């Protein structure tokens, strides 16, 4: 317990100190890191039932479009549009997943792509209210009451707060009875049905909760960028999301977070090689799927064991009773 608390304290200090330690354009990277953390973690939540979705980026887009339209056309405040857009994304997520509950595995994967792409093409097709291929511009910057929170550093801390809150809620879900049911469905869907678990209901639930949080990430992104277009939610972007979770791993709760952080660092370091970035991403994806299918998370226990052996501090600390 002591070690866990120390760990969290260190992470908290780093998270708060980081925006002051880096250059201003890198604060931008940190804000995007927050969106990606929520996105990857919610993608893993959908994944715990064994379903791989290809429409997660589109549900994120639903959140972005909803929040943009709610604040622009209805003139409602940002603090209200943020949770509302999560709900809209959840509702659209339900409409995507409901017909797909008959499919599993590859069928679900490619089917979610089809329905997600359909939603995306609606944005391309209809100029009113979605703005067609050029999307929406002049999305009002984020503000809470009279306070403008669109300043880079302020918005970073706001997104950090939302990300921590979202991840905490998803952690509680993961450790709850519902989370156990999701994992049971992944392990043996037939057995689950036999013992009276309504498998389709739980699969839909995981998908909708995941879509809700993806929507939140999308809304945060829309108000940060000020403009969104259908191009930003293409299947290509989905591959990057898959890279995050494949690099980190999906077995443990912290795998996707590890993946997002590592890949953000990799992309940041490869900034001078901008045009080679898809190649780097693709090569990393192939490497992890072919050579290291468990992701980085399988290295963590090994690293911890080595760390324990080496560290003298561990020996000095009183052993916790087992």
């Amino acid at each position, binding site marked *: 317990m002591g070690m866990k608390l120390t760990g969290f304290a260190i992470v908290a200090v780093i998270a708060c100190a980081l925006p002051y330690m880096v250059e201003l354009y890198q604060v931008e990277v940190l804000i995007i890191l927050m969106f990606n953390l929520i996105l990857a973690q919610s993608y893993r939540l959908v994944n715990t039932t064994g379903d791989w979705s290809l429409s997660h980026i589109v549900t994120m887009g639903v959140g972005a479009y909803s929040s943009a339209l709610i604040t622009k056309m209805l003139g409602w405040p940002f603090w209200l549009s943020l949770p509302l857009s999560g709900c809209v994304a959840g509702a659209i997520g339900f409409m995507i997943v409901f017909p797909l509950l008959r499919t599993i595995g590859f069928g679900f994967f490619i089917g979610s792509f*089809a329905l997600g792409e359909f939603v995306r093409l609606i944005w391309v097709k209809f100029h009113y209210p979605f703005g067609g291929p050029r999307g929406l511009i002049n999305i009002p910057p984020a503000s809470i009451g009279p306070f403008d929170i669109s300043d880079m550093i302020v918005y970073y801390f706001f997104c950090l707060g939302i990300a921590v809150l979202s991840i905490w809620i998803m952690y509680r879900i993961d450790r709850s009875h519902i989370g156990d049911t999701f994992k049971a469905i992944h392990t043996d869907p037939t057995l689950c049905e036999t013992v009276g678990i309504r498998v389709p209901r739980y699969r839909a639930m995981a998908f909708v909760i995941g879509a809700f949080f993806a929507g939140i990430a999308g809304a945060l992104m829309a108000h940060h960028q000020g403009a969104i277009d259908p191009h930003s939610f293409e299947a290509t972007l989905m591959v990057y999301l*898959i890279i995050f979770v494949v690099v980190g791993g999906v077995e443990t709760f912290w795998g996707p977070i590890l993946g997002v952080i590592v890949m953000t660092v990799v992309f940041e370091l490869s900034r001078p090689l901008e045009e080679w970035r898809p190649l780097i991403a693709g090569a990393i994806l192939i490497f992890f799927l072919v050579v290291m299918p468990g992701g980085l998370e399988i290295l963590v226990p090994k690293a911890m064991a080595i760390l324990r052996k080496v560290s003298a501090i561990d020996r000095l600390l009183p052993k916790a009773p087992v």
Partner: protein
Amino acid sequence: MEFSTLIQTIANSIVQGSVYSTVAVGLALGFGVMKMANFAHGEFYMLGAYVVFLLYTTLGAPFPLAVLAAFPIVAAVGMLTERLIFRPTQGNVLAGFMATAGLAFVLQVLVGQAWGVGLMRAIATPYMGALQVGGAFIGWQRLLIVPAAIAMVAALWYFLYNVKIGKALRACAQDPEVAALQGISINKVTLLAMAIAGGYAGIAGALMAPIQPVTPYMGHDIIITAFIIVIVGGMESIAGAVLAAFILGFIHTFVTTLFDGVVATMAGVALMALILIVKPEGLLGKVKA
């Protein structure tokens, strides 16, 4: 719709369906044998177009030779993909699919670095002129694709049903374990399937090179259509792929003529979703996607 427009649209649909079928049969073949869902299949198509660009436009080789050369070159890429990606991930459809999505990125960047990113490569049409039928014009270059597609599908059909190794390929598709017990080497068969799949995608791209703008990203649209086709036709069915290719060719061309390209794509993905939900094994398939 006027009569001449109707004829024109039907002719365009047939040409489009022919292109789709040459691309989709390869994808269905790979999926039939050991469930290889190749997302980089569109990039194989793109590589075929670049082979024509390199041999015909840059080096001045005759057009038919350049098209034929696309087969062995892209087939080799297909075999490499089998060896390096599909064999280690055998038994996991999603892992192979995702890893080939990574391969698609890699190939796009490599080609982009070699010949320029986003730069459209105009390839001079080797066969000028057009055939006139009932007020409709079909360029010879486009018309050429129809007999080429028929020949390719017929050759594949003959190979699968009359040649020993082709029969082995079908046996492996039906039941890999029993096929292995009969002494068929599964690794050899999958290698062969990916070689044919790659070669066919390469020829399709090569034939389309003078018609379509050649860019590193030209495989992106065709791969989505190709997946729609194999899902609609039945993932592992060659006949289903050909049937669905023409259905999609007609839907895309007619909807594009009557409405626009976006609605046509919407119709395609909606059809795919409908098939997955109502008839997951596809029109002519036996295995659920």
